[in-house]
């Protein structure tokens, strides 16, 4: 493949995604369906931009699933995984066993020999981790009962793939070439006990290496302070796990998941997450496109009714089994519907298993390619089924008002606009809403917006530094804008736009650091709130209290310190020379900090409190015992008093 054609193919994929996904999202269809449609569009049946190489891309893009499971693992504390053990083994195990049995019987009844029927049963019992988790995450349904159950089942299916791969060669008809379909692994040719030992060995290697090898390595790599090296290492980690797992014949996705769980408590968790995330997103998108492109429409159209019937019957059977299990595991009707609907398709692993059956002669070529089309169609139908659930079924069960969302059109005129619904913003928003203050929430994180929608809170996706958006949000009539965006650049942009176009708004602005605070002061912001100041002072005050200071004294000390700190900061800002180029920001920060600490020493704020001190009065009255009065700062006395009171 020459360079030109490689870039041309890349351009086709990227362009198709960029065009189809926003359109699909705008229509409320979700990104997965967007990618699938993009794949269909550029595939051999419509535009014909990509042909047979789509299959290779599919295999390559499956790596996105591995990355997704790594990310899911890293977000999952081991303790939480332990809590999920009952649904994973119970619900997941029953689902795989019953679905395999039922589908096998049906296939056998439809005239397949028993070995082919069993292979189809096992293949079709699996669901698509990639599609289901992506949809559940996008809709913010992961934490729901249905989401947790679906996740448990998918996890078990990933484990179940291992014995399936072992059973498949046994199903091959006698005399057929028992090739393993290119999956040459270390394990073959070894006695059974050795194979088992290797599987356990690989799992234990991942756990031990994750604990004792990867963490120090991550620290080393982080210390080099080359940003992309960390990304490289993160990728190496996931790829390495995949290679190891493939070598011993285990599911790479499962290995990556395990690796993620082991690193869930690591201090580099968030860096790893944010480094892998974009790769995962790109590869999954590519994967969905490849699935779309791989649907053989010629085959489908040659016998459309049969194909459609097969797909619908298959999904119905899977769905009914799932909902039966959901009932046993006490899911509510609406959650159970979501659970059944979401897992009713066949998973990406079926592509692997089906090519396996073809090579082993378990299934004739014609049947195998027909089944492949069935799998792809069932995956393509999933977003539609979920859409059906969301628009038609869910509203009947949820009492809250319908979840129809007007994308971006803001029809509210509230007195408060809250820009940024992150760590700080979400507490402010909750506080205002709890006190009945109608607030218009703007945020740039679409996942967050979706989550809020699902909670019944109206929030709008958009960049609050855009004048038209602010206007639409009612900035001309509002009284206050609270700016709690994540970066100082965003914050400064919003401040400038508000000053210029909406002078009627009072601004309350969050600042993360002292340099940010200075920047905002220079922009003329009056109400600046340093992110960690109040928390720090509350912790400090509680520490004083625990040491035996009176609660009220500790509280006043914190309050006084804050006033002192803010005043000192203002003075420092005035003194700061206006050289804008920060040659050595870190050094500057240290200097500023040391200046601040010096002012702390010069003004012993706590001694300034003369009220409630009777020493001067005693002096006036000529009492010789002034010295006998306990000193506010002698903690020994305070500790005594404290003990007596409790």
């Amino acid at each position, binding site marked *: 493949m020459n360079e030109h054609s490689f870039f041309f193919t890349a351009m086709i994929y990227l362009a198709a995604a960029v065009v189809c996904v926003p359109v699909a999202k705008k229509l409320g269809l979700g990104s997965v369906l967007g990618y699938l449609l993009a794949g269909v569009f550029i595939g051999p049946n419509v535009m014909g931009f990509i042909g047979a190489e789509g299959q290779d891309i599919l295999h390559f893009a499956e790596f996105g699933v591995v990355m997704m499971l790594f990310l899911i693992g890293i977000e999952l504390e081991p303790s939480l995984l332990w809590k999920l053990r009952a649904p994973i083994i119970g619900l997941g195990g029953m689902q795989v066993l019953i679905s395999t049995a039922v589908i096998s019987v049906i296939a056998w009844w439809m005239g397949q020999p028993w070995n082919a029927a069993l292979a189809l049963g096992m293949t079709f019992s699996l669901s698509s981790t990639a599609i289901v988790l992506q949809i559940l995450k996008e809709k913010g349904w992961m934490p729901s009962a249905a989401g947790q159950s679906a996740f448990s089942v998918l996890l078990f299916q990933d484990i179940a793939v291992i014995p399936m791969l072992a059973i498949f060669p046994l199903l091959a008809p006698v005399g057929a070439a028992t090739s393993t379909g290119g999956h040459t692994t270390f394990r073959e040719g070894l006695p059974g006990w050795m194979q088992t030992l290797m599987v356990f060995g690989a799992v234990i290697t991942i756990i031990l290496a994750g604990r004792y090898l990867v963490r120090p390595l991550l620290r080393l790599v982080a210390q080099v302070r080359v940003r992309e090296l960390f990304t490289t290492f993160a990728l190496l980690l996931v790829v390495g796990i995949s290679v190891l797992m493939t070598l011993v014949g285990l599911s790479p996705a499962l290995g990556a998941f395990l690796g993620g769980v082991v690193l869930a408590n690591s201090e580099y968790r968030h860096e790893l997450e944010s480094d892998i995330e974009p790769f995962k997103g790109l590869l999954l998108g590519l994967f969905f496109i490849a699935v779309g492109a791989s649907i053989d429409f010629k085959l489908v159209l040659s016998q459309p009714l049969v194909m459609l019937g097969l797909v619908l019957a298959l999904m119905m059977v899977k769905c009914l089994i799932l909902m039966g299990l959901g009932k046993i595991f006490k899911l509510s009707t609406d959650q159970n519907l979501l659970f059944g609907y979401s897992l009713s398709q066949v998973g990406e692993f079926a592509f692997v298993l089906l090519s396996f059956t073809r090579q082993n002669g378990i299934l004739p070529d014609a049947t195998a390619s027909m089944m492949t089309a069935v799998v792809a169609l069932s995956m393509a139908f999933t977003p539609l089924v979920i859409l059906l659930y969301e628009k038609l079924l869910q509203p009947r069960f949820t009492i809250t008002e319908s979840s129809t969302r007007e994308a971006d059109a803001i029809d509210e005129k509230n007195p408060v606009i809250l820009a940024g619904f992150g760590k700080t913003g979400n507490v402010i928003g909750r506080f205002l809403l709890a006190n009945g203050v109608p607030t218009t929430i703007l945020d740039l994180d679409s996942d967050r917006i979706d989550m809020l929608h699902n909670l019944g809170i109206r929030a709008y996706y958009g960049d609050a530094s855009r004048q038209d958006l602010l206007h639409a949000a009612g900035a001309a009539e509002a009284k206050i804008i609270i700016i709690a965006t994540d970066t100082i650049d965003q914050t400064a942009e919003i401040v400038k736009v508000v000053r210029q176009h909406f002078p009627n708004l009072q601004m309350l602005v969050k600042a993360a650091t002292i340099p940010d605070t200075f920047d905002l002061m220079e922009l003329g912001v009056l109400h600046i709130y340093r992110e960690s100041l109040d928390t720090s002072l509350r912790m400090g005050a509680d520490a004083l209290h625990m040491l035996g200071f009176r609660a009220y004294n500790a509280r006043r000390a914190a309050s006084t310190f804050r006033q002192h700190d803010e005043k000192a900061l203002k003075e420092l800002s005035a003194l700061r020379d206006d050289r804008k180029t920060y040659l050595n920001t870190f050094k500057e920060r240290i200097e500023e900090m040391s200046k601040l600490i010096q002012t702390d020493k010069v003004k012993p704020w706590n001694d300034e409190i003369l009220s409630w001190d009777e020493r001067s009065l005693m002096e006036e009255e000529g009492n010789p015992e002034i010295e006998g009065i*306990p000193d506010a700062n002698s903690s020994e006395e305070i500790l005594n008093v404290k003990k007596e009171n409790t």
Partner: protein
Amino acid sequence: MAKILILFAHPALEKSRIHAGLLKNMKGLQGVTVHDLYEVYPDLNIDADREQALLLQHDIILFQHPFYWYSAPAIIKQWQDLVLEHGWAYGHTGKALSGKRIGNVISTGGSQQSYTVGGHHGCTIHDFLLPFRQTARLCNMEYLPPFVIHGTHRLKRSDLPFCCMQYRETLEALRDDKYSPAMLQEAAYLNDLIAQTSDSN
């Protein structure tokens, strides 16, 4: 045996001699609950439900505090504003505190002489406590004479044990209902009654 609730308010107990001593000396006294308002509510955000429940569990309520600016520290006022709700403490249906006794335990810098008509402060302690007295009446409570420690600025460390002992005895006598209504009616300070009972014994 009556139950006593002491609503204690001192914004800077770490600087106090008298109140730290009084509290220390009566520690563990049976039937007496000390409720340290500034310690429990450093942000003055008083939990009215909790306070009302505490009041219902006791028969005698005593505000113990320094006599700042002829009145109590700020938290006592905040407490009154939030806890003594209309319809609960007063008003047609407000009978929750009816029949309970209430009073003040205070320390002042000035001597007893200075708290006389024509004295340095111009009025008696009894006069200055008018808002507390009337509050008690409005809540259908019986207002007790105050327990007062005068001249705290001149007080020597050696005088403390006597004050503490007096206070402890007063609390015990109130708890065991040793004072007749007539005695309470007549006394200017609760302190005076100690002398009487110990005289009669």
